[in-house]
């Protein structure tokens, strides 16, 4: 069984694309979240190997969710997804410990190679 | 693999320190009193403007004072340990010896007894056993070590 991944994005269309890309590569998508609060809760209960976290989400944005996730597990593997123009938010996320990010719109290879590297790093 | 050491006499025992650490060898003149120093500190001497503590090795190593050697042979060996300098008062300075590092062993006979804490190891040198001092420990002012307890 491949690594377990949690997808957090408010757009269901986005989640669907990501899920397809991941499943094709043999990853297990253990859950989906459509806002920050849900992302944090599902992270806590599902304990995935990695979470793809969108920055712009209702209720609780991705940055805040990321901080809470790191306080649950400081070694959590988090990949931030962002739109172009959110560079300062990404920099903030890096400061907080995020190991990689992808910029939308992305090619499937990008998301796969980012996940692969993040999983390889301890 | 061999290193040079300065050997010296203390009571009935023989000890040594690496030549590289030795700065100078002095007669024990002009040791100045120091208020409430630990019992194993004989006082201080000044060397080129620096004020250097002098450790009474006999007392530091809890050896019995042994007057087998003449007082006129007594010396202070000034050594450098890290950024510190310190004097060691000894009964007599003997010679410079080469010791093969592979020949250094832990006290095989237990002959060193109570002061083994201050010894890195021993090496056979001719007839006698030469003990190599662990300088950082000899010079530590730590209270847990004997002789350094507050009055």
């Amino acid at each position, binding site marked *: 069984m491949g690594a377990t991944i949690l997808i957090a994005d408010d757009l269901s269309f986005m989640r669907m694309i990501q899920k397809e890309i991941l499943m094709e590569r043999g990853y297990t998508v253990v859950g989906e979240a459509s806002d920050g609060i849900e992302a944090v809760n599902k992270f806590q209960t599902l304990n995935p190997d990695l979470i793809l976290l969108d920055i712009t989400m209702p209720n609780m944005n991705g940055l805040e969710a990321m901080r809470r996730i790191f306080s649950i597990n400081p070694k959590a593997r988090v990949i931030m997804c*962002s739109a*172009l123009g959110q*560079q*300062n938010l*990404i*920099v903030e996320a*890096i*400061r907080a410990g995020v*190991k*990689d*990010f992808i*910029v939308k719109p992305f090619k499937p290879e*990008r998301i796969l*190679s*980012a996940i692969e*590297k993040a999983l390889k790093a301890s | 693999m061999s290193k040079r050491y*300065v050997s010296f006499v203390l009571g009935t025992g023989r000890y040594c320190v690496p*030549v590289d650490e*030795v*700065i*100078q*060898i002095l007669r024990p003149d*002009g040791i*100045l*009193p*120091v*208020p*409430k*120093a*630990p019992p194993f*500190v004989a006082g*201080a001497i*000044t060397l*080129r*403007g*620096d*004020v*250097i*503590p002098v*450790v009474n090795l006999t007392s530091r190593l809890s050896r019995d004072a042994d007057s087998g050697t003449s007082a006129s042979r007594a010396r202070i060996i000034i050594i450098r340990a890290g*950024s*510190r*300098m*310190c004097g060691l008062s000894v009964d007599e*300075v003997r010679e*410079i010896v080469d010791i093969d590092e592979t020949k250094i062993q832990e006290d095989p006979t237990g002959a060193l007894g109570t002061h083994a804490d201050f010894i890195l190891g021993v090496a056979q040198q001719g007839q006698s056993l030469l003990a190599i001092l662990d300088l950082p420990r000899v*010079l530590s*002012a730590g*209270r847990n070590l004997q002789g*350094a307890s*507050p*009055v």
Partner: protein
Amino acid sequence: MPGSAWTEDERLRRAFLEEGDELVQKLGESLSALEADPGSHDLVHEVFRLTHSLKSESALMGHASLSGLAHAMEDVLESVRGGELALAADVLEKLVAGADRLALMMGEISRGERDADSDPSDVVQDLRALIGSRRGTGDEATDGPPARGNGAGPHGGAAEGVAPAEPVFGAQEVSRLAEARERGESLFRVTVTVATDEPMKFARAFLVFNNFEQSANVIRAIPAMDGEPADDASYARTVFYLTSAPDDETLRAAARVDQIAMVETARLEFPSAGSIGRPLQEHYRADAGPIASDRGRGPGPAGPPVEKTTIRVDARRLDDLWRFVAELVLHKSHVSRLSDGVARGMDADSIREELMVSSDSLEKISSGMQQAMRDTRSIPISIIFSKFPRLVRDLSRKLGKPVDLVMSGQETEIDRSIVEALSDPLTHIIRNALDHGLEFPEERVRLGKPERGRIAVSARRQGGTIVIELADDGRGLDTERIRQKAIDLGIPDAASLGEADLRELVFRPGFSTKEVVTDLSGRGVGMDVVATRIRNDLRGTVELASETGKGTRVVLRLPFTLTIVNSLLVEDGGHLYAIPLGDLDSTSKVSAGDIVLQEQGEAGPWMEELIPLYSIGGLLGGERTPREEYFAVVLRHGASRGLLVVEELIEEREMVIRPIDDLLNTRRLFSGVSVLDDGRLVFILDTSFIRRDNF
């Protein structure tokens, strides 16, 4: 240089000219040698090193076109070293043309002409053409458009061609570099190229930066990593200067994140004095007064010669001082408000509390100011070192002993006050090394040594100590012959003296006379004078290390500043103690009957109240010697007061404070120790104990 009226800029300019001349001359020599032996890697390296030094030094002095030319030569040599460019005749020819132009330009600069007079762009273009540069001119401007790895080979030859000019490090960076070097770290330049299709180049570079920060100390990133990036594309290629203990593999691993196309690491030399960016814009007139004033009776310690001239100070250091002054003003008005409060009948407890706060802050401010002031007094040792290349060159010619001078740590800062006192002894030691230490070339060859001698001079800061080493690879000291001489001179115990003792003899007056020394093939003409200067005037130490036939090393250790403190000397229990006047409120007398025993300990009367009372015997773990009446010193520490009773008050005097070893200070009661002229020890009291008990 007594009475020298040069400004520091002028000194730097002269130092640059001397060194630049030297470099240009050596460059010519090495290139000729290279023409004769084009296969020599050592020579290529030497030429590379020389152009590199010329590049950085001239850039520092603002000679942009000279620096640009040297840079172009350096790039060509880099390609030769990297094996991308063969050292064909036409390449050599262009390099020689470059060296000639450099010499011409140096000449113009030394005659005071602007270096722009000789535009070297023709030569630069020729050189650039050799490595197929994308840059048309050799202008040392900021990096042009970032190089992209557009298929110029698997290793992206594109980026390699433009080795960045090493930046000029600022004072703070220099001090961080110095610290890193002390910790044993290495300096690296890591060039990170971001994949061309990465939409957020800055964030990508920042990710690498963030990773570096885990295992290294990033000194500088170009472009800078702070704030909002003005131009995202400029981060396509980001250069990091960082220091790190682990090897470059660790750094590569840190940079191995997704979307990074290429990582290049290079280990660099720590910057020499040449790259200290000291914008000496600000200028202030100071009396530069001696730390040691001549107040008080008695001979007192003879202070070293002190420069009394206008000094230039780094603006940042003045900023530090200003910061403290601002705080001082703030607290002054606070205190005056409090005194108004007293007049208006404000309650005593809150006044007392606020006063304590202010007093503590004032303490911090004054020690901060002291430190900041000390900083304004420091200057890189290059001010002395810069004289050495010429000295060595002249002597080497005169004596017919070719020699290479290697200097490092020129950026090490020393106190201005010791510059003059230090200059002569160092010059003397170098002179001796050339005169007596180094053999003639024929002899060296016979001994299987390189024909050219080597003299290495280095300086570094080690805690509060400046360590200066001067080493040569000459014949070394013949200790057995020194012993023989000592026996002849009737020095007691000469026959049994150890190596170190024998070497120490060289510092004896009379022992090191010319005739003896030449005979001993050692050094020593006036070594006794050197020793006196360093040991007595500068309160430092001198040591000689030597291996017969291999060379001699002289190690000087100097206190960074001479800490001279005005103190009150007292006597108690047969020992002398000193109380720094800054910790002293007043002195008085206390009779035994006035001492009361309170819960926390003894107390005595002072200004209508009872304050804690101490005795030195008590502080050292014993008891107060019973007497009818005591002298008492009122100590202050912040708002706290305490009485210290002693047997005798002796006098006020200035004392040179030396560090005290832990073995002599097991109760941590002393902050240092001092030696009186008659050899007695004085223990300097650290009066912070009154605070520990008081509140």
